[in-house]
């Protein structure tokens, strides 16, 4: 039954490949996070989004609740509009929620932090957050610091 053993080994090989694909999809790329619960879209207007990229995470109190899906320039307000997809599991952001662009560590990647307020009504799909704090641009900080130093003299 040589050929039967051979068939079994090839079958096991292909199955192992499928399992690895599942492992990569679920454990490594975390495919389940997006998708099944559904999501809704929020936007936020920032003066400056320097360094923020699409697919950056959106977190609230340190928990990832969604992802940045688009960044565009808004001509009427001369600012940047950031579109975010927030998981349906986190639908309790009040209307006076504020958004800020934060950095993971000193040189880490930029992400958006949401801070919920006290308003009883919640944000809905398509709403825009105007209470925002822009990205800290390191060069500007250093520039200000040097300016202060020179004016102190």
């Amino acid at each position, binding site marked *: 039954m040589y050929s039967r053993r051979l*068939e079994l080994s090839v079958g096991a090989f292909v199955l192992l490949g499928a399992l*690895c694909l599942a492992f*990569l999809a679920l*454990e490594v790329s975390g495919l389940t996070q997006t998708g099944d619960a559904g999501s809704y879209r929020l936007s936020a207007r920032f003066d400056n989004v320097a360094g923020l990229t699409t697919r950056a995470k959106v977190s609230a109190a340190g928990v990832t609740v969604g992802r940045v899906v688009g960044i565009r320039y808004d001509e009427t307000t001369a600012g940047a509009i950031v579109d975010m997809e927030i998981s349906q599991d986190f639908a309790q952001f009040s209307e006076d929620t504020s958004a800020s662009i934060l950095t993971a*560590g000193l040189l880490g990647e930029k992400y958006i932090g949401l801070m919920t307020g006290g308003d009883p009504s919640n944000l809905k799909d398509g709403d825009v957050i105007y209470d925002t704090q822009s990205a800290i641009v390191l060069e500007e900080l250093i520039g200000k610091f040097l300016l202060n130093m020179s004016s102190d003299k």
Partner: protein
Amino acid sequence: MMNWIAGIGRSTLSQLSDLGRATLILMQAIFGRSNVGVHWRLTIDQIHVVGVLSLSIIIVSGLFIGMVLGLQGYTILTDYGSEQALGQMVALSLTRELGPVVTALLFAGRAGSALTAEIGLMKATEQLASLEMIGVDPLRRVVAPRFWAGVISLPILSLIFVSVGCLGGALVGVSWLGVDSGSFWSNMQASVDFSDDVFNGIIKSVVFAVVVTWIAVYQGYDLVPTSEGIARATTKTVVYASLAVLGLDFFLTAVMFGEI
């Protein structure tokens, strides 16, 4: 000087006719009329030879490469105090680059050279000529099943390599060096995207599979049927296949991930 130019011209022409012959062989092997039932069986046999028998080298290499990535990544990332990004680094390097590329290189060395030598030996011992005289096309009987087996096996091996590599990275990073398990995996999941990273890696792997197997069967089918000819063709398979994989990897990366 004229000789030199003439030499370049001659070698270009001969390269071009090599490419043409290789393409014809491939086309005839793939698109020729064939007996699907018999050939499916032969393909399964060959998946056993090129795929299943390559498993051990792929698993061991994947494990060690993952472990090395974990170790190296940890020492570098601790300098910036961001060792929680270790999972991200290990997984991205593996899914995007190291998985498909290293698997294809190992495959060229392990299975590609064996394919060339086997087909070459069949040619040298007149088995291919004998098939022809029996009225069976060796391209369809011998070359086609081996080609398909390679194209099916390599992406599977690559998936296995990446998975084992991630586990190897986790073993070193989490179990030995003490990176927090939660942040290791969540960082990995947050940064690795299925369609951008995993799926693109699979596409790379399929392209490499076609190229490596093609080179291997062509070199075997076209070699000079002597012991020296087989030795030379086997070497050529490994060299050409490796160069093709590395070169193609650059272009595929530029198309998939580059924002040029």
